[in-house]
């Protein structure tokens, strides 16, 4: 099980609670991007995107580097932890779904018996 300290937990909740920020992470999973690229992609102002990236950076999801006038964003050190957490989350999602499926299978079995 992946462990997160409380402060990081708060930052993670905050960072992931926003659809744009989740979109930014998805985007950066495909390729690094500048703040300008991201702002355009998500139809936002530069200032708005800087704020989002700041929140993600605070939570360790993203790192940024300024070269010349361009600030490039990439996925941060949380990525490996995230992968473990994602796999566990994925497992749980399917486990929940499959519990439901198992109940349905029991019900279908009962129905067959009655026929």
């Amino acid at each position: 099980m992946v462990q997160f300290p409380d402060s990081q937990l708060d930052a993670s909740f905050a960072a992931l609670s926003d659809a744009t920020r989740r979109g930014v992470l998805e985007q950066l999973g495909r390729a690094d991007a500048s703040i300008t690229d991201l702002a355009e992609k998500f139809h936002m102002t530069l200032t708005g995107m800087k704020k989002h990236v700041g929140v993600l950076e605070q939570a360790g999801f993203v790192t940024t580097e300024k070269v010349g006038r361009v600030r490039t964003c990439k996925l941060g050190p949380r990525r490996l932890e995230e992968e473990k957490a994602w796999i566990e989350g994925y497992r749980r999602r399917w486990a929940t779904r499959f519990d439901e499926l198992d109940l349905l299978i029991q019900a279908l079995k009962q129905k067959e018996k009655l026929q």
Partner: protein
Amino acid sequence: MMNPTTTERTSERELVVTRTFNGPARIVYEAWTKPELIKQWWVPKSFGVTMISCEADVRVGGGYRFVFKHGDSEPMPFYGKYLEVTPPSRLVWTNDEGEGGQVITTLTFEEKAGKTHLVMHDLYPSKEALDAEMASGAKGGMCETCDQLDVLLVTLV
């Protein structure tokens, strides 16, 4: 007591989920292929998502389309085509809504003593596509943060 579910990233491009169900393959297969049955288990209440439509034309070359909605969000479709249809032991379909390319899902249903062992194998088009999926936390138009929050919450208890 429910049967355990296992999940493993078996390679850079592959994810495998397994589970045993307490029923014959015929019934498990049916629950995966009939829309009126799929609707009954695909989105448990705790997901906070509703399945607003479910279509499945289960034959080789036929398509499926599941549409989900989470709160006031835009409807999220999950769709693709069936590549192999072998009742009640094997189903292969594509998942086409991802931007990183097509994901191929292979389901095998193996029956033993009235129980069915299911192996769900997802093959991503590239390592990058699976990495991106993990980075985004999204899968199949589901509540993206639910899992993340779920995992985080478990660590608090």
